[in-house]
């Protein structure tokens, strides 16, 4: 029997997450390298239909239980511990998103298995399954191998295009019965975000500010620039956490995913949590004092400089080009 290679299927609110297909695309490559069989592990409640979209896998292992209505790390870990007692796998890819975060570590801790976080790629090389990881906010890359199998890989979004992990083929489904204990954690309700004044996902131009904007008082500089484009101001996490802009303006892991024609990243370092929400923008311009900031690795144009100087200068230059500068 061929060795197995697993991808944990992340699904939320009735839909399979994009990262699941990204993980399947990557998993397919590695499984083929290993000569292994790719299995998608689907933990859900009345979620059998979701398996039909997982045809990139050779097989879907499906466990149906009411406690899988929501992703609770403890419950997932408990189920996977049971599955690992019955079946063997060489590796497990776990999505590293807000929905699933923590479950991979918990499983690794329970079974004393190696966990590799922050993976952007996985390859079979030099006789080992190796991961490429991004650390320190994108400032350091690392190649990592695990000691022991199965290895649990926490995968960042964007490892492969999601469409490469999708297939029309209906895979065979193997049902797996689980017996779960009553969890100490219960979801009571979801709270949808308050409707924002602006839907940043619909804007053609976004002026995004990060820590480099320094204070709430400086936000008007970004607003002035956004007006020139009839665009909107959005932000990375530190600005939202400070309460300078509402949650509806956040781009990245916990916020929105945007694809504007122009994304001006001002004083944003480019940590993976932010870039996963904006890297598909058609044109990215970054301004940062740190020439080594990871944002310059995905930007099309960059200015190494102080946002508080470049921002007003750019607004002024645009006003001049439009012919309104002389009237200001």
């Amino acid at each position, binding site marked *: 029997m061929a060795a197995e290679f697993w991808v944990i299927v992340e699904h*939320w609110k009735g839909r399979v997450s994009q990262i699941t297909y990204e993980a399947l695309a990557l998993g397919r490559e590695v499984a083929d390298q290993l000569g292994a069989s790719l299995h998608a592990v689907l933990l859900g409640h009345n979620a059998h239909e979701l398996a039909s979209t997982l045809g990139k896998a050779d097989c879907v292992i499906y466990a149906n239980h009411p406690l899988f209505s*929501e992703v609770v790390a*403890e419950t997932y870990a408990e189920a996977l511990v049971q599955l690992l007692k019955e079946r063997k796998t060489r590796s497990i890819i776990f999505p590293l*998103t*807000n929905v699933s*975060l*923590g479950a991979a570590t*918990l499983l690794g*801790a*329970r079974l*004393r298995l*190696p*966990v590799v*976080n922050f993976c952007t790629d996985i390859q079979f090389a030099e006789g080992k399954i190796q991961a490429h990881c*991004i*650390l*320190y906010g*994108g*400032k*350091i*890359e*690392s*190649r*990592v191998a695990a000691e022991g199998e199965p290895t649990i890989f926490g995968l960042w979004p964007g490892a492969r295009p999601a469409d490469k992990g999708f297939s029309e083929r209906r895979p065979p489904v193997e049902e797996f019965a689980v017996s779960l204990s009553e*969890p*100490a*954690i*219960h*979801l*009571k*309700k*979801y*709270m949808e*975000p308050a409707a924002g004044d602006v839907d940043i996902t619909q804007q053609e*131009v976004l002026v995004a500010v990060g820590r480099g904007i320094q204070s709430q008082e400086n936000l008007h500089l970004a607003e002035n620039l956004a007006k*020139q484009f009839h665009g909107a101001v959005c932000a990375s*996490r*530190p600005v939202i*956490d400070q309460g300078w802009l509402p949650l509806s303006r*956040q781009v990245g*892991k*916990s*916020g929105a995913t945007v694809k504007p024609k*122009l994304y001006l990243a001002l004083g944003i370092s480019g940590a993976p949590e932010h870039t996963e929400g904006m890297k598909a923008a058609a*044109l990215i*311009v*970054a301004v940062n004092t740190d020439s080594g900031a990871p944002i*310059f*690795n*995905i930007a*099309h*144009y*960059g200015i*190494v400089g102080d946002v508080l100087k*470049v921002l007003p*200068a*750019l607004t*002024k*230059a645009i006003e001049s*080009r439009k012919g309104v500068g002389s009237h200001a």
Partner: protein
Amino acid sequence: MNILVVLRMVPDVVEELEIAPDGKSLNLEFARMVLSESDDHALEQALLIKERDGGTVTALALEAPEVDEVLFAALAKGADRALKITGPKEGVTTREAAHIIAGVISSEPGLKGADLVLTGTQAINDLDGLMAPLLAQELGLPFLGIVTGLVPNFSARVALATKEYPRGVRGEFEVALPATFGIQAAEKPPRYVPVAKVRAVMKSRKIDCVSLTETVEPGFSLLQVLEMTKPQPSGHAEILEGSADQTAGALCTILAERGLL
């Protein structure tokens, strides 16, 4: 009603990071160490709970450069006790750190039996696991991560916790206490404490020290770092050179040529 906050020092990524000669680790000798950002939020959340619902806050950290300043700052902000675990090796991994910290929590009077164990949801160097679920497993406690709001009802032994999901959606969870939480962001931004107040606390208060009770054998993390490198510039960004006015002018021309103005 005891609240325990686990704090970790990480290299400041605003500074240039250097890779050690072995090519497999960071050169920490020249790194400026700062409190992990989400741990700062965990401390703030603990202090907010104390002010709102009572209880005591203990800040706990492994010995590391600059950690005394961070622990004194925690006292100055309102923590009741600061505890430093001495003796860990330099560059300890998250999995190793969790094992060491859990050992101290289990053995140190006043720490065992904490109602809430809070720490940051994720640190920039959590390569071999996240601290909160690792601690939860070691301590036998429930775990919830990516928490942005926490309201305990100590008498009922439950807490209402808000977890962040994508697209601004949040989930409200009921969690049986005691429990471990990975804090993403506190309900309010971390408070500022004047340097003068920290200095005053340095003179009037002390950091309790405890030697590590659990050692970690080589290979405990189960990972082997084969190579560490700085990202190679992809050559993607064309850098515009010159003064603010010059670069702004050049960018303006580019945007106009692309029909964006």
